[in-house]
């Protein structure tokens, strides 16, 4: 009697295979390794540094690798007062970050200009770059930053990653 070849079921590899959607897999990889671009411009940067320290340890959520090169980072954390003198420099660094990229406005200053209703301060970094998460506080505690990061992760989970990645291609195909 001829042996039946196991074409549909292979017990040797079956336990190691996970079925998922491509989007979900991409998002899962992205959200758990968000390398921040630390745009520390004022006092909020101290709390940003604290959140990377042992006590708060943002490494638990995959964001410990502060990259001082925009080309290697995923999320820009604007921590501090954005003066008009600095504003275009922040924008330039943002433009150098590769897609996909996200932005967290940390603290009152980065979100809205904060207490500086003044001639010298940009009234919120969202005038120049798109912000995903605003964190309130002056300064926000490191826990608040971590909460913001977790919210960003939840936001990334729902993104149409593949579509965004190949947007031009899909739009071409649709005619």
């Amino acid at each position, binding site marked *: 009697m001829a042996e039946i070849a196991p074409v549909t079921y292979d017990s040797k590899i079956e336990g190691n295979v996970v079925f998922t959607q491509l989007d979900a897999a991409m998002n899962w990889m992205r959200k758990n390794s968000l390398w921040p671009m630390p745009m520390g411009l004022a006092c909020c940067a101290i709390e940003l540094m604290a959140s990377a320290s042992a006590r708060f340890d943002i490494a638990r959520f995959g964001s410990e690798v502060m990259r001082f090169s925009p080309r290697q980072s995923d999320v820009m954390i604007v921590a501090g007062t954005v003066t*008009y*003198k600095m*504003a*275009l420099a922040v924008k330039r660094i943002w433009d150098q970050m590769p897609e996909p990229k996200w932005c967290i406005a940390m603290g009152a200053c980065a979100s809205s*200009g904060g207490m*500086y*209703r*003044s*001639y*010298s*301060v*940009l*009234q919120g970094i969202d005038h120049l770059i798109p912000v995903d998460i605003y964190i309130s506080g002056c300064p926000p505690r490191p826990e608040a930053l971590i909460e913001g990061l977790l919210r960003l992760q939840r936001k990334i989970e729902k993104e149409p990653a593949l579509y965004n990645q190949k947007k031009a291609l899909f739009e071409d195909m649709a005619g």
Partner: protein
Amino acid sequence: MSHSPKAAISALESQFKILSKVEFRGETTLSVEPGAIADICLFCRDSLGFNFLTDLSGLDHFGEDPRFEVAYELYNMERGEWLRLKTRVSEDLPEIHSVTSVWPTADWHEREAFDMYGIRFTGHPDLRRILMWEGYPFHPLRKDFPLGGKPSEMPDVAFSAAAPLEGGPFVTVPSTATTKDREPRARG
């Protein structure tokens, strides 16, 4: 305790024209002629021992003439004596001689006074703006400059916009009233 330098003041009074002398809580302020400021400062340093310029700042007395004032805070490190010099410059010709050759630390202070008030310091080695960017068209600490700023544009360098004040500016008033009455509010 008074740190007023009596001997130094009388030496200055005999050497230079002093417009006015104000004593307040042990501090002495001498008003002097703007044209003589460099000579007076040199005299203060070399003959009176004021070897440290603690601060140099501009002031805007908007509505008065002469409009601007420059204040020099001098300190004698050996004797622990303070002296304040003030001199007025007019709006039409806001120019005064630099004291960078007397105290090199005046360099950045003078740049700040130039940046914020538009007072030009002649003889300064490098009179550029220090806080605002090169090409910013205003002098923001002048009293007739709005608190929220004015729009400006300097392509590829910086821009500025007027900040929304929502009924403000919110200002506090100096008084002995309670915190609730003193807190910053929109005061029309």
